[in-house]
């Protein structure tokens, strides 16, 4: 598809990058880097542009996640990762909420300092194999028994890509519990505006000078644009051809992958 000119690539001081589907595809054995992405990250760092990863990753702590990315050739630190769990912890503390966690086992350490006794809310993450009927039923019974049910969902994605195919994301299970309990979840993570704003704050660049690059047209691209950023849709990860005709979201550009986006941006610097 022809690009609509390169105006979108000018006056940029920082990039927000989605991770899964942009840097690598997750899967058994840790995942597979997407061709050209590790080199693209190196070029961004060498160019003087600021870089922050803006991810809904909830299957690992930020430290473990950064370590895993480093091992795959992506030279990023934990401080360069903006992820939902820390934001959720801030929210829980602010509002005196004690969570019942239905999350991936590897995310639990992020909540180590949070009081979880006598829970008065449910926190839902990308729990994968932990999305058993029994676990969902347990969360449901807690919620339906609360006088004021509070359901916090770390993201609301519909699905994501792993090396062995597309998989249901936390959003599907959020909707399941919303329907069961007749309650509305609060979303912490993309596409919530406050989440993008905290990523921008960590990036240290105002929205007009930032570009978000992601594979999820609604949660990455649409969400970022609503904060005043430009946003690019990559054709890797969970991208599907129907994304080229999304009824609501018009990315500032479609690019084949992160490497192509960085080529263009660096040429316009």
């Amino acid at each position: 598809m022809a690009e609509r000119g390169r105006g979108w690539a000018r006056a940029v001081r920082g990039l927000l990058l989605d991770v899964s589907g942009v840097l690598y595809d997750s899967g058994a054995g840790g995942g597979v880097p997407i061709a050209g992405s590790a080199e693209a990250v190196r070029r961004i760092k060498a160019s003087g542009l600021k870089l922050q990863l803006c991810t809904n990753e909830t299957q690992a702590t930020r430290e473990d996640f950064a370590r895993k990315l480093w091992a795959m050739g992506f030279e990023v630190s934990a401080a360069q990762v903006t992820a939902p769990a820390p934001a959720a912890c801030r929210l829980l503390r602010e509002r005196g909420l004690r969570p019942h966690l239905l999350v991936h086992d590897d995310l639990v350490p992020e909540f180590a300092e949070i009081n979880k006794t006598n829970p008065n809310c449910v926190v839902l993450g990308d729990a994968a194999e932990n999305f058993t009927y029994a676990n969902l039923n347990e969360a449901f019974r807690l919620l339906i028994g609360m006088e004021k049910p509070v359901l916090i969902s770390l993201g609301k994605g519909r699905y994501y890509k792993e090396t062995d195919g597309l998989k249901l994301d936390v959003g599907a299970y959020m909707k399941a519990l919303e329907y069961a309990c007749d309650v509305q979840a609060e979303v912490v993570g993309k596409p919530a505006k406050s989440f993008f704003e905290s990523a921008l704050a960590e990036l240290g660049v105002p929205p007009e000078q930032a570009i978000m690059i992601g594979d999820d047209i609604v949660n990455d691209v649409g969400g970022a644009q609503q904060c005043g950023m430009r946003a690019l849709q990559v054709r890797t990860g969970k991208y599907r051809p129907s994304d080229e005709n999304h009824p609501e979201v018009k990315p500032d550009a479609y690019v084949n992958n992160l490497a192509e986006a960085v080529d263009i941006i660096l040429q316009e610097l």
Partner: protein
Amino acid sequence: MAARRALKAVLVDLNGTLHVEDSAVPGAQEALKKLRSAPVTVRFVTNTTKESKRDLLERLTGLGFDIAEHEIFTSLTAARNLLEQQQVRPLLLVDDKALPDFTGIGTDNPNAVVVGLAPEHFHYEMMNRAFRLILDGAPLIAIHKARYFKKKDGLCLGPGPFVTGLEYATDTKATVVGKPEKTFFLEALRGTDCAPEEAVMIGDDCRDDVGGAQQAGMRGILVRTGKYRPADEDKINPAPYLTCENFPEAVEHILKQML
């Protein structure tokens, strides 16, 4: 209002109407015999996700009702009919006890998904299988969308939440085949050569039985047995065509006033 058309079919709910749990409603067996003397087709209809027609037949004949298997129409039958019409092969997320109602339907290389109440199938791996099929265009058929149900040890998630999750993930809408969906009632009449305007539904659930049937163009008779609670008849609009004590009274009314 259009002139009343002659009555040609009578749909009868099971649990709560013909019998209540393991006891027949007093006089119901005789009432059914009388009904059969009239020139009407009779069908026995129920929402179920885990009782095959064979199981239902056994219970009813055990209670002294003279019923043939082909006269029973359940939400499982509705699902099966839809599969046959669309000529698709389902991934069946249903209770094992429901499988007999799907014999003869090919399930190899599925290109459709049927969801009933089946906790043993609602784990991540199976949900992903269903999700991928639907995302690739397979129709999603829901036996019903109950949010939860009551068991001895507490409330339990029904199929509704899982269907909703799949709908969201795939950006599609399920076809729900059980009561009170219009499809259910229209399908129940398939093969009877009767139009909805020529049929009446007798049931104890004002919304699901009577409301649903009337939305489909039939007349509805609400009986005060089973799950009926006082003033239920005020909860639907239009109100039931008739509210009466029980199935035998409903049959009396039909024989005297509707033929």
